[in-house]
């Protein structure tokens, strides 16, 4: 007897269903079910993945949802019969989701999966739906009445989903259900694919309820019966009611709808009458091209454009390009800086439409990577906008397309090992510190994850029942979806109503709406997406442009050799992407001279090439120390230069993501589809087994064709690294342009650049103190914050940089306005602005009243004295002389420390200056002196810790310290870690003794041998005993006065 399971909660019924769609589809197929349904709680989030999985194993999928209502309507399994019914189901869910107020954490919101539905909604959208009522625990009159109503309202389309519950009353219950007014359909109310999953399901229940497993009691299922069962078993269980099993087939036949019918249509863009979208796109492109190339379009660009337009027309993508063009055009009108990134940079059309900014004539990029006739995947254009103004673009899109036609894609948050073990451990009653150490072990991949050895290492007994079971369950949990979140900016736009394709929900952020499907789902269905992303550097560049009167990226002169000279020196603080320590070190070695070098620079200091050990070979070849050689297969297996096309641009070393994929295709003979699967399986933490299979396949494939084992393995590891952190070439090119532009600004307009950087904080790698310092070292005059000259933002005053109020910690932007309006010339003016005392204290504390002839302490005394003055205007006309002679004079050291405490930087001096005599006496060199020593000198330096970095494998800690003469880079090898951990990780003032290492390019490091925490000296600067002074304990938050320096930026 054939049977289809129609009541299935997948793991997308979050923390209810315990099996992934893939597992459910595969098991259903093995058991020989004729079809399997998916009915997640008020959601269709898992249907696309299930559909994909069902296609793979060749089983018919019935897409539906389990509707749970706010009124007394029983839960209903809803299966749309056709495309239009599907649209009604998604609209129904959209309506339900829109009713849940933002931030509602009530029980009602939880049990309905944030979707409030009522029976009337169903009546409205019920046409074409097949409904199966879920029987509640008790068959009371209310339920009977509801069934009568369903029978009347959905004649012939309403059924009763009945199952054996193994609660002891199945026989009687079935008999009673057979009396009910709707025909019975057998189901098994599935929560997992195999009975073994009961344990994980129990744990999920506990996570959902926030309780420990031994406290969950009756909230757990009494047995493990909620798994998929074979037709034979169902036949046996329903031997008294065979028609209930048979009826499943009727329903399968009646629901013809398949997700394949969700044909996607691009939104219509306004097109001048008489033109087709293709013609309109061509016109715009040629107009753009003429503007981009005022001296005439180069013939080869002309050819490319023609070819691209042909392919676009062939694939009918014109409206997609027009859509993106419209968004970019809006941004341009609003003077919001934007730039396309990712594979779109491969397109000359995108360049002409001003979607991307990298000139295709400058680099040879392949349009096929972006759009290809073979891969029938829609193109994917990602555009970065200024981070402060992206929201405007997003709201424009909503306004233009309407909320029914635009939504942000979801991101499925999957359980990662860390979270899995933490939550499982909590449920299983592991102690908090045991879970903490286990979760700290979560970076091992695959089989190594919480292996017995690593568990022993952290002092736990892997044989203990609770530990072992927690680990087993956490492993099962890893990779299952946890909840939906919104994608960073992926917009889905449709021609018709989007809510008739997929339910739209409210996002956590007000005014955003997002759909239930993620990027992969959208790809599977061939739906268009535009990524509207945020990039801080664009904000900074625009702010600098505004100061300089530049309109867009294209106005910046290209290939300026002064810019490259600066970068070759490693002088790149503040420059996009290349300001990190690793990049600063790389620049003098790579010596970028042309734009494409920057593309490589951006891509090379990434986990992919580093893990694949590709960096050094590339550098050696570039420096001419090694010949560029292309690995090749044995002659009979393939052409010797088969990799030339792939690797020629990068001297035979794969640096870009797509090069690694290409190697898999060309050298290991993967199909493009396999290569794509490989990339995807790397990107997620799932399928540890699959990764191993790919490893075997790729390495053995390459070795069999004559490549060396070593090369093959390195290529693979590189793909591993690329999985999450790799850059494709086109993407690197887009970023490289921003590198160039920001470097150009820094090189030629250092004041404006520093000003824009400060006004775009927080962003980038460095704190304001370093940005200001760097600017001063480049000859920029920096003026301090002052009530009579500063604005909220930092500004330029005749070429000098005036710091703004925004640097004062805790100062509010609203307070700046009256100050700017009044431009005080006296303390009385200042009082008259009506600013609250808090604001005045902050200004005084920041020493911002010097122009009023008040130094910090005098100003503070005045401001504090205001508290009891009620009659301010009267007071303000009186001459202001209040005696404060008994206050001690503030030393310069105190001033500097207070500057740091209030504004994060001081223009008066570097704090280390006050300790210099002390350090000199100890024989400690300044950073500048240290840099002048010869390679191998043993020396000591000391300074304030700016940055600590501990790259993934933990073998080394990089640390940057700063003194009044400059910075020193410190390398601490792991062997020293234990002995000096406290000094390395904990100190704010660090003394390092070690050996100077100087690379051939002149890069200087101190290889630490000994580290001393000298933070205790900080108190000396203010000549205050830095002692254990008591205070009334308050919440453990540092009042801003207590910490002297801004926290170092640590990257553990």
């Amino acid at each position, binding site marked *: 007897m054939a049977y289809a399971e129609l009541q299935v909660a997948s793991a997308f019924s979050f923390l209810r269903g315990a099996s992934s769609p893939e597992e459910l589809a595969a098991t259903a197929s093995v058991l020989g079910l004729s079809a399997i349904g998916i009915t997640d709680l008020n959601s269709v989030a898992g249907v696309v993945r299930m559909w994909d999985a069902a296609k793979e194993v060749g089983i018919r999928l019935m897409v539906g949802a389990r509707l749970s209502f706010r009124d007394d309507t029983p839960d209903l399994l809803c299966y749309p019969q056709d495309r239009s019914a599907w649209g009604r189901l998604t609209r129904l869910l959209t309506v339900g989701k829109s009713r849940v107020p933002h931030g509602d954490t009530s029980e009602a919101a939880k049990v309905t999966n944030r979707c409030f539905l009522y029976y009337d909604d169903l009546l409205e959208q019920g046409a074409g739906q097949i409904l199966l009522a879920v029987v509640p625990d008790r068959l009371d009159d209310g339920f009977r009445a509801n069934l009568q109503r369903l029978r009347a309202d959905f004649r012939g389309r309403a059924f009763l989903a009945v199952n054996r519950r193994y609660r002891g009353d199945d026989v009687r219950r079935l008999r009673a259900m057979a009396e009910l007014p709707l025909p019975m359909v057998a189901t098994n109310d599935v929560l997992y694919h195999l009975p073994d999953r009961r344990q994980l399901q129990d744990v999920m229940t506990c996570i959902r309820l926030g309780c420990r497993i031994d406290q969950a009691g009756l909230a757990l299922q009494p047995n493990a019966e909620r798994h998929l069962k074979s037709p034979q078993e169902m036949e046996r269980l329903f031997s008294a009611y065979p028609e209930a099993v048979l009826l499943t087939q009727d329903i399968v036949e009646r629901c013809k709808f398949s997700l394949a019918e969700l044909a996607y249509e691009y939104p219509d863009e306004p097109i001048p009458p008489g033109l087709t979208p293709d013609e309109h796109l061509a016109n715009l492109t040629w107009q753009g091209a003429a503007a981009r190339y005022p001296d005439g379009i180069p013939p080869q660009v002309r050819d490319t454009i023609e070819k691209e337009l042909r392919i676009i027309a062939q694939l009918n993508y014109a409206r997609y390009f027009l859509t993106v063009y419209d968004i970019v055009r809006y941004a341009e009108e609003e003077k919001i800086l934007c730039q396309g990134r990712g594979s779109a940079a491969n397109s000359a059309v995108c360049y002409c439409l001003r979607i991307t900014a990298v000139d295709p004539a400058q680099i040879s990029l392949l349009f096929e990577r972006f759009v290809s006739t073979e891969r029938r995947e829609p193109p994917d254009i990602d555009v970065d906008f200024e981070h402060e103004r992206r929201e405007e673009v997003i709201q424009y899109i909503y306004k233009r397309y309407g909320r029914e036609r635009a939504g942000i894609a979801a991101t499925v948050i999957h359980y990662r090992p860390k979270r899995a073990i933490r939550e499982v451990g909590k449920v*299983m009653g592991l102690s908090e510190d045991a879970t903490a150490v286990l979760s700290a072990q979560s970076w091992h991949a695959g089989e190594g994850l919480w292996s017995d050895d690593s568990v022993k290492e952290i002092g736990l007994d892997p044989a203990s029942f609770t530990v072992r079971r927690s680990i087993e369950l956490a492993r099962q949990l890893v990779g299952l979806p946890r909840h939906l979140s919104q994608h960073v900016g992926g917009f889905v736009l449709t021609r018709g109503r989007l809510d008739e394709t997929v339910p739209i929900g409210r996002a956590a952020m007000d005014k955003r709406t997002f759909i239930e499907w993620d990027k992969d789902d959208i790809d599977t269905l061939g739906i268009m997406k535009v990524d509207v992303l945020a990039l801080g550097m664009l904000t900074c560049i625009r702010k600098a442009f505004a100061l300089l009167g530049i309109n867009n990226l294209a106005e910046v002169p290209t290939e300026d050799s002064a810019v490259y000279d600066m970068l070759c020196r490693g002088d790149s603080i503040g420059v996009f992407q290349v300001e990190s320590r690793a990049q600063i070190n790389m620049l003098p070695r790579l010596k970028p001279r042309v734009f494409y070098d920057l593309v490589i620079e951006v891509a090379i200091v990434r986990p992919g090439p580093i893990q694949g050990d590709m960096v050094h070979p590339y550098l050696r070849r570039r420096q001419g120390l090694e010949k560029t050689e292309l690995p090749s297969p044995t002659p009979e297996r393939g052409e010797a230069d088969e990799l030339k096309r792939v690797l020629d641009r990068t001297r035979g070393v794969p640096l870009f993501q797509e090069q690694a994929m290409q190697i898999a295709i060309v050298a290991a003979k993967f199909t493009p589809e396999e290569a794509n699967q490989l990339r995807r399986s790397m990107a997620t933490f799932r399928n540890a087994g699959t990764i191993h299979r790919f490893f075997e396949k790729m390495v053995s494939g390459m070795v069999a064709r004559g490549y060396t084992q070593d090369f093959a393995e390195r290529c693979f590891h590189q793909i591993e690294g690329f999985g999450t952190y790799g850059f494709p070439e086109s993407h690197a090119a887009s970023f490289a342009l921003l590198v160039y532009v920001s470097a150009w600004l820094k090189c030629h307009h250092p004041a404006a650049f520093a000003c824009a950087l400060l006004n775009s904080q927080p962003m980038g790698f460095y704190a304001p103190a370093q940005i200001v310092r760097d600017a001063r070292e480049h000859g920029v005059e920096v003026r301090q914050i002052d009530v009579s000259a500063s604005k909220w933002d930092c500004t330029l005053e005749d070429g000098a940089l005036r710091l703004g109020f925004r640097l004062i910690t805790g100062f509010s932007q609203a307070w700046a306005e009256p100050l700017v309006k009044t431009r005080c010339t006296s303390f009385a003016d200042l009082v008259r602005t009506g600013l609250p005392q808090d604001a005045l204290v902050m200004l005084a504390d920041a020493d911002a009243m010097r122009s009023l002839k008040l130094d910090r302490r005098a100003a503070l005394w005045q401001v504090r004295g205001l508290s009891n003055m009620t009659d301010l205007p009267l007071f303000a006309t009186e001459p202001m002389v209040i005696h404060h002679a008994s206050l001690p*004079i503030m030393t310069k050291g105190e001033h500097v420390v207070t500057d740091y405490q209030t504004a994060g930087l001081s223009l008066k001096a570097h704090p280390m200056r006050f300790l210099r005599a002390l350090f000199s006496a100890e024989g400690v060199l300044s950073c500048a002196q240290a840099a002048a020593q010869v390679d191998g000198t043993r020396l000591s330096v000391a300074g304030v810790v700016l940055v600590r970095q501990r790259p993934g494998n933990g073998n080394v800690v990089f640390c940057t310290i700063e003194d009044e003469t400059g910075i020193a880079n410190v390398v601490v090898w792991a062997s020293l870690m234990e002995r000096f951990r406290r000094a390395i990780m*904990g100190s704010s003032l660090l003394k390092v003794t070690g050996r100077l290492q100087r690379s051939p390019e002149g890069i200087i490091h101190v290889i630490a041998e000994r580290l001393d925490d000298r933070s205790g000296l900080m108190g000396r600067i203010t000549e205050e005993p830095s002692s254990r002074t008591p205070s009334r304990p308050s919440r*453990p938050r540092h009042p801003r006065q207590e910490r002297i320096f801004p926290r170092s930026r640590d990257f553990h």
Partner: protein
Amino acid sequence: MWLPHWPITRLSRNTPVSPDRPLVTVETIRGVRHLVAVGEVGEAHGLSRGQTLTAARAVCPALVPVDADPVADEAALGRLVAWCERYTPMVAPEPPDGLWLDITGCTAVFPSEGELVRDLRKRLERNRVSCRIAVAGTPGASWALARASLPPSSANVPIDGDGWLKDGYDEGAGVLTDLPIACLRLEAGVVAGLRRLGLRTVRDLLRIPRAQITARFGAMPLLRLDQALGEVEEAIDWPRPPLEWHERLAFPEPIGTAEDLARALARLSERLCSRLGEQGKGGQRFVARFFRVDDVAPEVGVSTALPVRDPAYLTKLLCEKLNMVDPGFGIEVIALEVESVAPMGVTQTQLMAAPDTSDELAGVVDMLSNRLGADRVSRVVPFASHVPERSLRRAPPLPVKQPSWVSDPASPRPIRLLHRPEEINVIAPVPDDPPIRFSWRGVAHRVRAAAGPERIAAEWWRGRRSRGRPETDLIRDYYRVEDSDGARFWIFRAGLHGEERTPRWYLHGLFG
């Protein structure tokens, strides 16, 4: 008295901190976990209050974070207050980490204030309670002195090796003026504001005209200063009034046996009752407090319906509660006090404290508990578990809350559940039909009607606990069956057919 690492002290008294694994308490502020208390071991590892847990882990990966529990800290402080009453009845907590002791006139027991402080310190240190004690003429001065740290160079202040003020040093503006302003018990914001103006020590503060300080920082700084100097009286809220009806007994060697304790209680009762008799009074609420060698002071109380001053009866009432007192490593002092005193005529009236007739059950329970032992009288209460024998628990007999037995009509439970399921012989069709007949305790039963199965799986998270009882780990299918005589049984099959082990049958309960 200042307890600088009180939360850590509290936590590590039960679990000693290994010097490699500092215990710290943490609190979550806006999603980020911060250290609250660090302790000496933690400080030695470079941890500090206010650090984020992530940063702290980077400095010291072995640290053991525990959630901060201010309520428990304060409760523990309260217990310490009770224990300190061995020195003086005037003890008050100064949350979160301090104690006030008024030792005025307490030198009757100790030869000097210094001796008292030394004794207190010794006992606390023995119990791994780190503390700093200062004796001064005003609470404010003692607070400041206990918490102050001074550079060793400071003039005319006796300093011990750690740079702390020596215990027992007396007050006086001369010392106070050298102390930092933070010693004045001011809010962190006020302290920081004063320091920003360059006012670091009390001396700096004294130099400024008072009105100007008050205008800028409110009344608090000067009030605290005046209190410390004794210019203004400071009232401390002592938690209990000094007791007139109070007797204590100290032992040269700590005692611990029930007999010793009973004897001591008898002597105390004797003394107290004779004093009560002298004044024609009786007590209605008595509390005996047992000061242990460690700083714990368990107490027991007895109440009577009518005033009492019969020492034998009082001793008997108290001794009945002795089993609630854990003597630990020994008890050094016992104190007995009357909390409620009432006039009582010379005529002896009804001696027995009549049980409260409004709650007869309580009387019965008291009687049964007294006879059988408190742990042998219990009530069965429901417990949330699917597994029948685990679905009930023993609970204290009182207080009676409405029992919440909710029986699911779909899966009824028998009136009588056997303590251990008994194996039975069964004839039943496979795989999961109800049995046709079975025999139990040698008697055969023919099944006339049956319902089931109700399938109950084992509680997998409890691990294998069978100990020779395999049925506890297996899936069970329960059936309600009625035999030809109309008797109803609850039987189950342990295990499923088709599995490795052949399923066996058991009888687990009887209906009606």
